[in-house]
């Protein structure tokens, strides 16, 4: 088997595992982490597509540049999504702490 096949199978496996976690894990932060893993696995798959769409010029292998460009854009989007999600988790926690009684421990380190 060629390397890209292994990478493809690996990506598929991680997509499956992280998708499972995103759906079943009730913990918001873990959902966000699983979503990140899911995104990364999709990007690995894009890398595989870049390799398959590539070729050779004068014996030097090259990859299809379009999926790489998509990965870079996708990374930015995934980063923005993570920041927004983590900010929301934090604000949710703060808001819940504000309404709780003070005898329950509720500390957030900013």
């Amino acid at each position, binding site marked *: 088997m060629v390397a890209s096949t292994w990478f493809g199978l690996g990506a598929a496996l991680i997509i499956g595992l992280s998708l499972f976690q995103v759906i079943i894990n009730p913990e918001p932060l873990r959902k966000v982490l699983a979503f990140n893993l899911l*995104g990364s696995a999709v990007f690995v798959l894009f890398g595989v597509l870049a390799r*398959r769409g590539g070729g050779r010029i004068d014996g030097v292998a090259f990859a299809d540049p379009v999926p790489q460009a*998509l990965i870079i854009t996708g990374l930015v989007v995934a980063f923005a999504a993570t920041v927004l999600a983590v900010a929301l988790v934090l604000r949710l926690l703060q808001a819940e702490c504000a309404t709780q009684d003070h005898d329950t421990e509720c500390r957030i380190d900013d």
Partner: protein
Amino acid sequence: MTELAVFGGKQLVVLALIMPLLGALLAFTIGGRTARWIALLTALVELVVVVSLAWIVVDQQIVVEYQLGGWEPPLGVRLRADGATVLVLLTATVVMTATMISAHADWQPLPDQHETRAGLVFWTLLPALWAAFNTVLLSQDLFNLFVALEILTFCAVPLVCLNGKAETFAAALRYLLFALLGSVLYLLGAGLIYGLWGTLDIGLLALEISKLNRYPPALSLALGLMTAGLMAKTAIVPLHLWLPPAHAGAPAPVSAILSAVVVKAAFVVLLRLWFELMPGSADTMVAQTQGVLGGLAIVLGGVLALRQSRLKPMIAYSTIAQMGYLFLVFPLAGAASAWGAGLLHLCSHALAKAALFLAAGQIITHFGDDRIDHLAGLGHVMPLTLLAFGVAGFSLMGLPPTGGFVAKWWLLQAAIETGHWGWAVPILFGGLLTAGYVFRVLAVALRPAATPALAASTVPHTANAMILLLALSSLLLGLAALGTGLPPQ
């Protein structure tokens, strides 16, 4: 294509994207009390741009295309405005402009304040959201659509929790997670399609797919993933759980935009996939499943809307039901009228739903209560607002001659034409449910108040005018559609 004046169609397509983006950036940079005036000015300029674009497309019967940076597909990104795009674009523009004008006095800073946080967020993110929605409508590139859908989500989520209550943060987070899951599934599908043909341009892909005798498994998988992802974003049953808390918890102008505009974006992409990329797929399993889920959404959304005790959650559940109608388009795609019915329903629902949410917002602010059982006397205090609420409600129900009526009539025609009579059941039953929850509000609101001391309300005239404008637009859309005398081909 003949250039009309200084600005031809191509420039207008680009301006339609750039203007709201520019407005968002300026509003954010300058901020303070100026932010809302920048946003409002942007809205007016955008209105002129979109109306001119619509005029060119409709009057000259052309499709305007623009290639970004002069790069042609398969590499370049194409922007494209045809009649259908322009109709949705125009609807969104009317909804956005009217909402902004009616909300212009909200979140005003106090005399000693420079700006309010909520105000800055609202006036910055609303134009940005608008730019993202216009990109979804105009772009012909699958990856570009992904980015636009993501920006749309990132703008919509903070707006949900504008008032900073714990429950709205929870609603926003749930909304974000559903939307992110939806977009990552969509991205995966788009990647697989790129792997098959090496392009993301919808036009080129449709050409390639039309040459196939049988579909490769990767294509089926890709379309399945994309459809599932987009269905999560359109809140179709059983992926609807995020919608009611987000749409009901947000401030009323935001609810109006979310329900009228934002949920429609993913549906527009679904239409692209199943009508442009894969035409003639009405009898496939996927189309049938979409129809069944749509039917379920109509019934479940309607029943849940009837059971709500408050106005805004009721309107939010009604959105779930009305989105269900849109999904009946897929199994009925074999009939000529299905596409037009979907498009018309999308637009008339957008106008009517925006009017309902804005009216509910005025009722909460000026009547002080949105419990449906406590609305007695509303008709006396806020007659114009209630009138707009009623007209918009009639459009949702599908009373003639509203846009909702014509859309449902065309859907029924499609069901008869294709011989699939079964789909008429949810269409008609959903109308009854809608009538149930709209009349429930009207019946209470028209009763005399228990305490007759309520003074006439002080709803600002601009807000009332905008709500009436939206409701009447939904009505006039139906007349205009009837005027064309056809379900379009």
